[in-house]
Structures are given as C-alpha cells and as structure tokens.
C-alpha cells in the first residue's frame, strides 16, 4: 500500500513540483503509514526507483533513447540502460532515506 501511494504521488507531483518534492511525499507517507524502519526504507527505495524509471522511460522511449545515449556517452557510461539504472538508484536512495527519516521520526514521537 505504502509503495503504491508513494509511487503514484511521486509521478503525479513530478509534473507540478521540483524533483525534491518526492522527499516530502516519501517522508510524510512513511511517517503516517510506515511500520518497521528497515522495511520502510526498502519500500521508499523501491517506490522512487520504480517511479523514476517509469517517468524516464515515458520520455525516453518515444525518443528512441537518442538523448539518453548521448548523455550516457557524455558521462562515459557504456549505454543508456546503465544511465537509467544510475538515475533510478539515485531516486531510490532519496526515497529510501526520506521514508526512513519519516518512520524514525514517528517512532521518536510515539516512544
């Protein structure tokens, strides 16, 4: 459930707010709905990893990945798929850390 909510909100808000707004989403949703810190981190990670992958592909596939290939070359990566994974991983890290912060903060309050 938490996964789906973060995923969907991240994609929708991506069109209206700066990219770091995902932090607010993952943080607040984890604060409200999170259970165990470890699992919440993984859910946050997976949700943003997936959200960013979907958003990147929505743009990149109609482009035949031409731009992603050029940018991969610029960063000296072998191909655009690696670039996508790097992108998604950074998103995942942001999502995971935000979710973890959210759940840990609630735990600090509820203790």
């Amino acid at each position, binding site marked *: 459930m938490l996964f789906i909510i973060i995923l969907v909100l991240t994609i929708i808000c991506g069109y209206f707010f700066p*990219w770091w707004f995902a932090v607010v989403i993952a943080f607040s949703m984890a604060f409200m709905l999170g259970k165990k810190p470890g699992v919440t981190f993984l859910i946050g990670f997976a949700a943003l990893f997936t959200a960013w992958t979907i958003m990147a592909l929505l*743009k990149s596939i109609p482009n035949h990945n031409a731009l992603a290939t050029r940018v991969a070359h610029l960063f000296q990566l072998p191909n655009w798929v690696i670039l996508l994974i790097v992108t998604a991983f950074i998103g995942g890290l942001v999502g995971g850390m935000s979710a973890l912060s959210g759940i*840990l903060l609630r735990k600090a309050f509820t203790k």
Partner: protein
Amino acid sequence: MKAFISIAVTLLLIWALQTKFGDIPPVGKFLNPATGFWNNAESKHQNDEELHLDGLQGKVIIRFDERRIPHIFAENDHDLYYAEGYITARDRLWQMDIQTRAAAGRLSEVVGPKALEVDRYHRRMGMIYGAENCLKGMMKDPESKLLVEAYSDGVNSYIHHLKKRDYPIEFKLLDYAPEEWQPINCAYLLKNMSETLAGNSDAVGMTNDLKVFGIGTMNDLFPDQPFHDEPIIPAGTKWDFTPLPIPKPSASFIAQTSGMQSKEIIPGIGSNNWAVNGSRSANGYPILANDPHLNLTFPSIWYLVQLSSPTVNVYGASLPGAPGVVIGFNQNISWGVTNVDADVLDWYQVKFKDNSKNEYWYNNRWNKTTKKVEEIKIRGQKPLYDTVIYTHQGPVVYDNISQKPKEGHTDVPVGDALRWIAHDASDEFNALYLMNRGKNYKDYRRALTYFSAPAQNFIFADKDNDIAITPNGKFPLKFRDQGKYILDGSDPANDWQGWIPASQNPTVKNPPRGFVSSANQASTDSTYPYYLNWRFDLYDRGKRINDLLSAMKKATVDSFLVMQMDNYSMRAHDILPAMLKYIDPTKLDKEQAEAYDIVKNWDLHFAATSEGASIFNAWWLDFYHMVWDEFDRKDLPMHYPSYDRTEKLLLTDPGSKWFDIAGTPAKETCGDVLMKSFVESVNKLIKEHGLPGKNWQWGDVKNTHINHLANIPGFGTGKFFAGGTSSVIDALKDDNGPSWRMVVQLGPKVQGFGIFPGGESGNPGSYYYDDMFATWRDGKLDKLLFLGSANEESNRVKSTLTLSSK
C-alpha cells in the same frame, strides 16, 4: 537521535544532489526524470498547436515541413519578426545565449574562471564598444528598429513562458538560467561574425619579417597581386566612376613588437558562390549557388526559415539571434555571400607620455586617452575589474605584456591601439530587410549600401536574367599597403582617411562570359583604383569554378550540385607535374617507390577514397615548411609567404636561395628539397598509417568531424569519412567546411534547393537535431518547400502552430 541522524543525512544528500561540483552538473537536478535531462527527450512526432502570446497584433500561422523548418505567415511585419524571434528561441535558445555571451565577454559568469582570458580578450578588443555603436546605428533606422525590437519581444515571450523543466539541456548541464534577450544581443551576433570573418591581421608577423629581411625581400615574397590570379571581378572590367583622391602614404614608422609565437593563418575558410544567366542554363533563367564555409558545429550556425507578410515572402538561412534571412531567395531574386577579407583591422603603435597612460602622442602634441572599466563577473569568485585604454583609434588591446595570456592571441601586438570596422555604427539589418524584399538589380544595389561588416562578396541573380557580384562592405580609404605592417599611431597621415563610396565598390553586372563567381580570392585586377588588401585567399577554387562554368552550356541544378561537391585540386594540377620531375625513383626504397607510383597516377581529386591525395597533401606541407625554414623562429612570430608565392618559386625560380636549408652545410636546390620532403612525408605516413594502401585513404587520414558548440562529448558527430580539402571547391577539412549549400533556379516559379550539416532543432534530444547531416555528408540537397500562402496545400507540411494575441 536515530531520526535526527537520518533526517540530517537525507538533507545532506539532497543538498549534494542540488549542487554543482566543478564541471559536474548537479546530479539530482540533472538526472531526475521530472525536471532533469530526461525531460529534454523529444518524440519525432509533430503536433498542431495553438498559443496565445502577449504583444502580437494579429494572427500568425506557422507551418512546419518534414525537416521542421518553420514557414511563418503573419499579417504584418511586426508580427512576422516577433514570430521569427519566438520560434528561433524555441529551437535555439541556448545557442543564442552562449554566442552573445561569448561576444560580450560574459562566459565567466556561467562557466567560471576558465573562460576569463576569452572574456578579457573580447572586452579589451572592444566587442561591447562595437556592439553599442552598432545598436545606435540600427535604432536610428525605423525598419531596423522594428525588426530588432519585434524579434527581441518574440524571444522574450518564449523565455517568459519557459518552465525550468523545459530549459535546453545545456542550461541544465552548466546549471544556469536563460536571461532576458536585449536588442543589443542582435548586434553581438554581427560582432561575432565580424570577429570570425574580419577579425584577423597579419601585421605582427609581417612587421617582424620586415625587420629581419628588409623591404626588398618583403616586396618580392609578399606581393600585392598574386602569381596565379583569377580576380572576382573579371580582369579588364572597366570602372565607370571617377575615383576619390587616394591618400598619400605617411612617413611610416615601423613599430616594435616582441616575444611571442605568431598564429599561423591556416588557409582554410573556403566559401564559394556563382551564378549563370539564361545563356548558360538549360531553362533560360539564371541559376545561383552558394556554400559559405565556416566552423561546423551542432547546433548549426544557420537556421532555415520562410518569412512571409504582406511586404515580403522570402526563404533562406538566418543566424539565430538576428532577424531576417542572410542567404536565400524570394519569387524574384536570389543572393548569397562569401567573405571578402579586406583589410579593415589595423594596429597603431601608441606612445604614452608616462606610466599613468593618461596621455598619448598624436599630431605633434599630447592627447588625452579615455579609460573604460570592464566588470567581468566570474562564477564562484569576486568580479574582475579590467581597465581598457582607448585612443582616438580605438582600444589598446594589451597595454603591457602582463595582460596578455601566455597562450594564444599571438597576432595581437602589445602597446598598440586597434582600429577596426566592427567598432563603427552600422545598419546591416536594414541591408537584409531590403534584400529580403528585393525585386530586381536596383533593389540589390540599394540594399548593399547599408552593409558595413563583415564585408561579403554578394552574388545576385533575378528572374529578369540579370546576374551580378559585388565585393561589398564599408571599406576605408587607404594608401597602398596601409596596415600591411603595424602603423605609427602618432602620425595623422596613418589614420583611415574616409571611405570608398559604396557606389564605387568593385562590382560587375552581366559580364560577357555569362557568369559571375567568387571563392574568397582577390576582388579585382590591379586597375581598381583603391586599395582593399595586399592578400586574399588563393585562386585555386575560383579558377576551378570558372573553368567548369566556362565549359557549361546548359547548366541545371544538378550540375551546380556536382560542382559544389567537386574536389579537383587546382594546386596539384599546377605544380604536381613539376614536383614529380625532380624525383628520382631509383633513389627510393620499396615503400617510397610505391607511394611515388600512387601519387604519379593520382587523378588530382581529393576524394575520400584517394590515397594519392594523402601523399600529395603531406608532401606539399613538408616541402612548404622546408622551403621557408628561415621563417621558423622561436624568438619572433613571423608571417610565412603564401602557397601562391611558393608555387611561383617552384615553377619559375628553382635555383632560388630560399631552397637552401639554413641548418645544413650543403647548398640545397629545389630538387633536393622536393626529394627530401617526399621521403620524409612518406616515412611519416608509414609511421602513422602503416604501409601504403587502403589505410592511406584521404577520408581516413584527414580528421573530419563536427563538434557540439561547447565541445560536449557525445553531442557531435565524431569523425566521419569524407573527401575535400581547403583548396578545392568542396573545402571540407577537420571541422571547417560548407555550413550551408544552396542552389536556386530562378524563373517564373523559383525553386530552391539546400542542405546544412545539422538540423533545425538545437536540442540534442530531438530527431531534428541532426536529421540533415547524412544528406549533407552524402552530397545531396533537399528541395526546399517555398509556400505561396499560409493555406497552400502541401503533403510536406507536417504540423501547424497558430499564434494569436491574448
């Protein structure tokens, strides 16, 4: 506590992802798919759109063809140029930003201290001073004012509606934001062109040559008229005007310079244009061709556009950031340009009274200098304040040696004031305004009077069967060789003494031979009463063009395209037989003999697959440098004699003392130097490319490529296989070549053809970023879609954008 650490780590992570470290863009900002670079990926598919914009007076319809070239139809001129600005910004905003920043000396603001020297140079050579004067000239003229203001409003309308996520990718990479477009930016673009095409001087090297060798040798090695001559205005053309009195040469004083390596001016920029009248064309109407050669970049220097309003319907290549079409055609006329390279940049040695440099000696008394403080903002550092001293001639680019960077700008002397045409008020946009609307020869001549710099060979053809060519610009009235060497800045007789009247610029209309042409070579024969320059580009391409045209009876668009791709070497034609005569094959080893056979049987074409071309090229360069070894000095920047003079030496004076190589005890002759340079250049080829054979193909040996404007890896073409070289019509070499190829068939219904290496979009994430490249590389042209009206049916129109006021 855990929560606190976790939140702190998260915030730190976000900060790190939002911050630019060195040249690496902010990773989170750049990579995130919502607002980062992924958002710049565009689909090839085009949609119809409707937009409401502030400031439009009526409705504008823009139709896009399959290359996404905009065909703009407006109800009045204001809306036309507004829409041109808007649509050009939509495709090329970053290019417009960075090119004007470069010209204005403002690169450091966005890229930091590494651009400081470039910025300082542009400030100190008076680019801002020139652009400000240029703007004054433009704003005095109601047409130019309308053009520039409406265009700027259009650009700004686009910028105001641009969301961060939609910033061009280069803004995201360099992490800065677009800024408001000022009318002066249009002037900066002109200054950019002037710097590229009329911003060089040989005076430093030439002055050193003069000191070392004396005036006798200089007049012999650096003559004012070339050996191989094929002037643009056919020799023998009569001048139908009474010239102004020519100024008397001053009691010249040769200024002192010291201590730097001279920038070798590499012959290379190789633009061509030609036109035939109906007597030589298949359908009885003129055909015109033009291929201006420049540094090739992505995005391309050119942006194709059709502009239509009740006063105009014109198609052609525009410069992003400048309103109007620069090279193109309308229903009645077509025109094109190549560079003139007249001497419009001179150096004056300044004698200051003391170290304060508040006064300088001129006209037998002390005169006040003016000082201009340039504030250069630097990203991540405090601004730099740089004081530039101006005399009445212009800025003293470097008033002491410490201001000069260790590398580069070797053609700029220290302690000398710069007099440059690009500093003067001018009104080039009016010239374009009039040319775009031109109906006949008279309109063409009138338009030219407004064009100052960079001077161009304007070629012309119209449907009334008139053809013409005019080396045109604002030319200073000079005594012979004025500015060939550094001038004494204290002597008023050395100043520019006025101007050649525009009506007396060299020109020819409908010459008996039935064609006109230019390829950057000398403008006129020696009978032209005024002095333009002592040197121009070599005759090779011009001669080849004229040979081909002379033999042409029924020219078509196709025969012109074949000519544009022609790579027959006039130089090899002129001198290779003489060079081969001196080679004794019995003295060569096996590989050298093989190379000798290849070059002996070479067809003199610089084709991509040619091995002979590689050998001739290497041999000639080695030979040239061996002959002029006297000019290779580490302590003093020297100017080398031209290829033309070297050819003359080889063909007419094989016993000349110049063939003797100074560092050897033996007394070398022409034959010795040819033999030695042949062996050395072939050995070098073997070392770099292996044994004679397929690896020696010219297309592999030369390094042809197109880079992104900011040299971003992955955003250019990489090396590609192509023929051509600087002395043939298809003068494609390294990253310099035909930046736009155009052929126009005039007639009852005009038909244009053209292609440029790149695409309309400046976005590396667009299909239209480089969709024309392959067609250009393969030597083909697109048939250009010239619509008669906004509603004309065409299956080539792929989408429509409608603009109207709010």
